[in-house]
């Protein structure tokens, strides 16, 4: 065993540890066995090589998973996330740092709100859950709600502990509130660990995912985009709970189901009092399931790479400065294909880098996801403009063959005619807007 491999054994607790190797437990969701032909050790070693020696893999959270599922065609993202590469540091080293982070005010506010919702053994939370999701049943009395302790060492241990607690709570047949349980979900062939804000076990044996968010619900409605993001995250949790539920059902002999309506808890209006709404996540669940199934397996992508490829930044001793030349890194990143669309800007740390490449290549997708639809086989802006300007004879054989080209020529001719008829004043050249 090489030194790098030994280090890997020690630090690599968040990923790639197969059920056989760590914290074996019957409750563990059936993680997929290694693919035939690719031994788990070699593929693990390969992913470690991609990260670089001694680099700790980054855990995938539900937000990243939801973003990954939103662009399943991107092999670059699947590989980098699957291998646990720190995309933010990579983007920094490539010279196109990501634009987003989180304000400490938002974090403080979010934590304070979550603590408030869960205070008093979750009395408020269970009251809201009962009102929204189980009206007509006897309300839970605060002292009857079990709040099992879920602390354990490492994500593997916490996952096993969560599964055990869920099974016990289901067998007990009462209410139970699991605060920050840990769940495993298979992403592109390797398990990722996700942590919902809470999971509630109902007396009837069903489980509900609870998402606590700090954006307000004003007069009963919240920002649709934020609710959508929360629903996609909740869908990831529901997906991760399903195999656990199957095991629990087999062990307890009770019917166990994961409810497809998650509870979204938000501050009410402008106060910090909690209010809640049931969010139907069936659609997001189906989408996430399909997209995750479509994700090319990370090993397959890794196998297709040139053998020496690595995303190692060769960090200097301070642990932050990358010493690897950006050109070399860029070459490594280019070795795996990306599917850039403008939506990536809000969801991926590498987006500025991919956008730069996409723009350099003149790819039409850089202008928007839907642009390709009307352009037929034309893939670059150069090709489109050449086809549009190649003469206005609609009887041209090329235009006859390709209706997209014919439509483009008509559009170009109409646009030119309208612009020629009206003298549009050119914007005045002025001082730059910013410093």
């Amino acid at each position: 065993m090489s030194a790098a491999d030994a280090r890997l054994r020690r630090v690599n607790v968040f990923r790639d540890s197969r059920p056989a190797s760590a914290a074996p437990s019957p409750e563990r969701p059936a993680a997929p066995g290694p693919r035939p032909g690719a031994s788990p050790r070699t593929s693990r070693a390969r992913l470690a090589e991609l990260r670089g020696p001694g680099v700790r893999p980054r855990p995938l959270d539900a937000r990243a998973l939801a973003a990954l599922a939103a662009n399943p065609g991107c092999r670059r993202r699947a590989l980098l996330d699957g291998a646990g590469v720190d995309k933010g540091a990579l983007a920094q080293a490539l010279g196109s740092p990501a634009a987003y982070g989180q304000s400490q005010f938002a974090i403080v506010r979010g934590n304070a709100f979550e603590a408030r919702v869960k205070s008093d053994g979750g009395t408020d939370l269970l009251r809201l859950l009962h009102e929204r999701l189980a009206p007509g049943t006897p309300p839970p009395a605060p002292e009857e709600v079990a709040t099992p302790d879920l602390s354990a060492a490492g994500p593997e241990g916490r996952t096993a502990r969560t599964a055990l607690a869920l099974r016990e709570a289901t067998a007990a047949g009462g209410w139970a509130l699991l605060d920050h349980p840990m769940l495993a979900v298979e992403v592109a062939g390797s398990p990722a660990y996700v942590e919902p804000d809470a999971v509630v076990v109902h007396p009837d044996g069903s489980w509900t995912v609870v998402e606590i968010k700090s954006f307000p619900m004003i007069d009963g409605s919240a920002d649709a985009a934020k609710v959508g993001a929360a629903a996609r995250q909740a869908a990831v949790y529901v997906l991760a709970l399903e195999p656990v539920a199957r095991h629990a059902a087999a062990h307890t002999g009770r019917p166990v189901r994961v409810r497809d309506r998650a509870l979204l808890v938000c501050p009410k209006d402008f106060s910090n009092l909690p209010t809640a709404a049931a969010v139907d996540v069936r659609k997001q669940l189906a989408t996430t399931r399909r997209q995750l199934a479509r994700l090319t397996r990370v090993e397959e992508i890794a196998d297709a790479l040139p053998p020496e490829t690595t995303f190692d930044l060769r960090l200097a001793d301070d642990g932050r400065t990358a010493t690897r030349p950006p050109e070399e890194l860029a070459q490594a990143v280019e070795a795996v294909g990306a599917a850039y669309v403008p939506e990536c800007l809000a969801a991926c740390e590498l987006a500025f880098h991919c956008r730069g490449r996409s723009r350099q290549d003149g790819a039409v997708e850089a202008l928007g996801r839907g642009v390709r639809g009307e352009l037929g086989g034309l893939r670059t802006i150069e090709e489109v403009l050449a086809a549009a300007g190649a003469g206005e004879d609609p009887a041209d054989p090329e235009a006859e063959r390709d209706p997209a080209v014919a439509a483009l020529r008509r559009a170009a001719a109409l646009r030119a005619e309208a612009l020629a008829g009206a003298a549009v004043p050119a914007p005045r050249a002025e001082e730059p807007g910013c410093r």
Partner: protein
Amino acid sequence: MSLIETLARMEAVAEGRARPRCTVRHRHLSGQPLVLVPLTTAGEAGAPLGALVGTDREKPVLLAVPQPRDRDLRFAFLAELAESVLPYVDGFADAIGWEERKETDPETGKKVPVQVELCSDAPQLIVPSAAGVDFVRLLGRSMRFRRTAEQEPAAPHPAPPHVPLLGRWLTHFGERARVPGASLLLSMTDLLTRHWASGQSALEDQHLGALLAWIDPPAGLSGREAAERAESARDADGQLLCPPAGPATDPAFDNRLLAPAMARYDAGLPGAEDALRALVEGQLRPTWDAVWHGLDLLRALPEGARVPDRWKRDRWSYTAHRDRVRAGEPPQPKQDDAVTAAQKLAARESAQAQLDAQEALDDPLVMAGRRLAGEAFQGTVTAVEEAFSEGKRPMPRPLVTLHTADRPQLSGGGKLYRALADGRTQTGECVAPAAGEPGVLVVRLTGGMGRGKTPEPGSVPEPGETVCWTLFEHAPRGGPELPDPEDTPWTHGGPPPAPGETPHDSPDPVTTEDFL
């Protein structure tokens, strides 16, 4: 995105600067707009951090909240905002003209003409981005149910006077902004994207700095370079050179500059408040300048011919709300009743249809898009044949033959519309096109020729003339009338509760840690 717009964006990429999407300006711009650039505190429901506001581009009023969690400071901010905004809004209330309108007489049930007031101009608020419009709506919602000391002397934390009134006005502006083509409250990014196609995606156009960089790149830079610089260039401290247009701030600004400055303020250090105000102004000022820069660019475009017509609707809207405030009506409810909601939706739908039609008629470039989509066609008249309608009193129904290269999606008998020189609309219908002759269409004129036996001069096109027919109506009508709110059917929740028993206008509960 339509093909013609995609093409415009690609032209912009190739040329390195934005390309026109319109040949005229399709929104009214007031001679004296009120620009409002707000900032909010991250993670909190519309707790304002600061704002630049004013009608004078050289002298904006800076409002800042040194500690957004302090209720008194928040109220002081809102009171100052009311002092800046309300005099401007009220300034248009008393310059009025008279308009004649038909109203149903309650006694006779007949429609009788009455003289009503119409303000001769109206206020206009400009915010940097679409998120700014949402923020105005949010501020309005947070303020309009506040109680002042005068209304409720016993309640703790009374709001300063005028704050509820400002809330009602901001709510009105926010609601009006949802009507397509309305111009009481506009965002600069929407204005600019309507008139120019940049070489980036619609998503990236939401960044005001990047959008302006494409439209008017500084000397020596291409639009793309300038836009990328505006988006992500940072100084040595890691701060963006071009701060976001808000209301959300950049997390790096929050974490590295704002949080330490607030800590110094909380510790009561001397000069901390001034330092905070300077920080907030530093984030706001570039956006303030960018908004005025955008206004300069837009003012260089000639106004569309039908824009004053739409602005008049905004003036009606302003006048009506002025009257509601003067009559002492309660603030807008939190949720509309069924009839009001249906009315609002119907009004927005017909405003959208009207806007689409008017923009196309005002602007050959917009019409080109409709022609490409097969919703209009332009052609040269080759022959005009006299014909008459059948019936007791034969009316002229001339047949106009024209040659066109457009491909309208027409079938025999389809209705057509054409704008006449005097602004009226002429109707026509398509006579089944002659087979075997592509590009030749015959249109029977069915209206707009007066009542005589011979068409009015100028109402029938001459051979050789170029005419443009549309398949869409020019003045689309709304749907059928809705019942009064008192007659709401039970299927839609029944009549709304009487004013006394409604839970809608109760103030929000005040908690010890609430925001706003």
